[in-house]
């Protein structure tokens, strides 16, 4: 793990990259990283996230700035900009059931080829997907998801990169921290090694590549 300046971290991300971005309706989204993506006008991005939040919040800022080519999300209902860009054909929106999305990301980070879930069977979400029977019950095969970069929000990071999350700001963050080639973390608090008890660490330090330095 290396510490890095916010602008240098975002400078590493090429136009057209696939990003996982933590957060649930903006809660637990690393806002400084989102703001810097907008400032550096990193465009043509694919974003994998729970939702597109709302205008002015979290991923909503990327939508409004028209930096996204495609989103893979479970919900866009609270962001009219997303709906409008989607209907105008300017943004590809892949809707995935939330539990399936979480497990597909986890599978990507845990080295599994995909997941077998009954969710979506008998609905339009099953279209184009392989069905696999296990013990007489049908499941959809939903492939694993990975990204070039994960933008992760943590409540506490220690100097080694061990991460702890706060309450509902945890959501997709620890899953994404496992599932990207390069993991960039913005932490509310950076603390010396040993301040976080081993049993309270949620994301182990070795998976973190970069920790955004305090200003």
């Amino acid at each position, binding site marked *: 793990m290396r510490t890095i300046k916010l602008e240098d971290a975002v400078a590493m991300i090429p136009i057209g990259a696939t990003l996982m971005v933590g957060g*649930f*309706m*903006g*809660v*637990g989204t690393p806002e400084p990283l989102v703001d810097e993506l907008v400032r550096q006008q990193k465009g043509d991005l694919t974003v994998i996230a*729970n*939702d597109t*939040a*709302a205008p002015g*919040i979290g991923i909503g800022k990327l939508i409004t700035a028209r930096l996204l080519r495609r989103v893979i*999300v*479970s*919900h*866009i*209902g*609270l962001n009219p900009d997303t*709906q409008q860009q*989607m209907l105008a054909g300017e943004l590809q929106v892949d*809707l995935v*059931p*939330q*539990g*399936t*999305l*979480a*497990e597909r990301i*986890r599978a990507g980070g845990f080295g599994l080829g995909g997941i077998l*879930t*009954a*969710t*979506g*069977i*008998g*609905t*339009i*979400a099953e279209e184009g997907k392989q069905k696999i029977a296990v013990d007489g019950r049908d499941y959809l095969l939903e492939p694993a998801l990975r990204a070039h970069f994960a933008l992760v929000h943590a*409540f506490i990071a220690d100097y080694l990169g061990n991460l702890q*999350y*706060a*309450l*509902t*700001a*945890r*959501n*997709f*963050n*620890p*899953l994404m921290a496992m599932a990207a080639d390069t993991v960039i973390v913005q932490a509310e608090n950076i603390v010396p090694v040993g301040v976080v008890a081993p049993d309270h660490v*949620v994301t182990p330090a070795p998976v973190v590549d970069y920790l955004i330095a305090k200003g």
Partner: protein
Amino acid sequence: MDAQSLIARRIAQELRDGMLVNLGIGIPTLVANFVPEGIHVFFQSENGLIGTGPVPEPGMVLPWLTDAGGKPVTALPGACAFDSAMSFGLIRGGHLDITVLGGLQVDQRGLLANWMVPGKMVPGMGGAMDLVAGAKRVIVAMQHTAKGRPKIVRECALPLTSNRPVDLVVTELAVIGFPDGQATLLETQEGVAVEDVIATTEAELAFAPELTKPTLPRAASGAASFPPVGDAK
């Protein structure tokens, strides 16, 4: 009591001590206001918490503690936080005793449509498909009709949420179950006649033995004359 509270109060009677329950947004949220005294229910918020508490006092908002809509909440003593994989592991894995969701349409066999109106409203399914596929019991909380049109229909015109039938639909008029895969009127709300339910329901209804049978033959109720659906709220 308004229609929404009537629905929520009736659903709350389904709660039992120690249950894990997920409440959707809208009417389902109100169920928490009617938990019978003396029982403890765990409410799950799918954004990663069991033990959601009421809205915080002014000055006490924690930005990392919200409901699934992003609105600040509090946490009760004994609450626990988890990631989205665990949250849906609880849902998909059969640990969730009851999910209460809103509905756009429910059909004859109990199949639910509640996540999109093609071309009009495409919010995404969020957690709805997992909740209906995974919960031990699925209860739909909705008004009986939308703009005068029935929401309990012969067949859903809107895209389904799951191929798994719901267990109970509670409206301001009635409680409907699906024993043997057939929509069945189990109760009417206080002061509602069986005939009122039939008149505002498109689906063929069977009747629980303890209900007074309707006096009008089903064919005469005119249910088949409702206009096609598709823009239900």
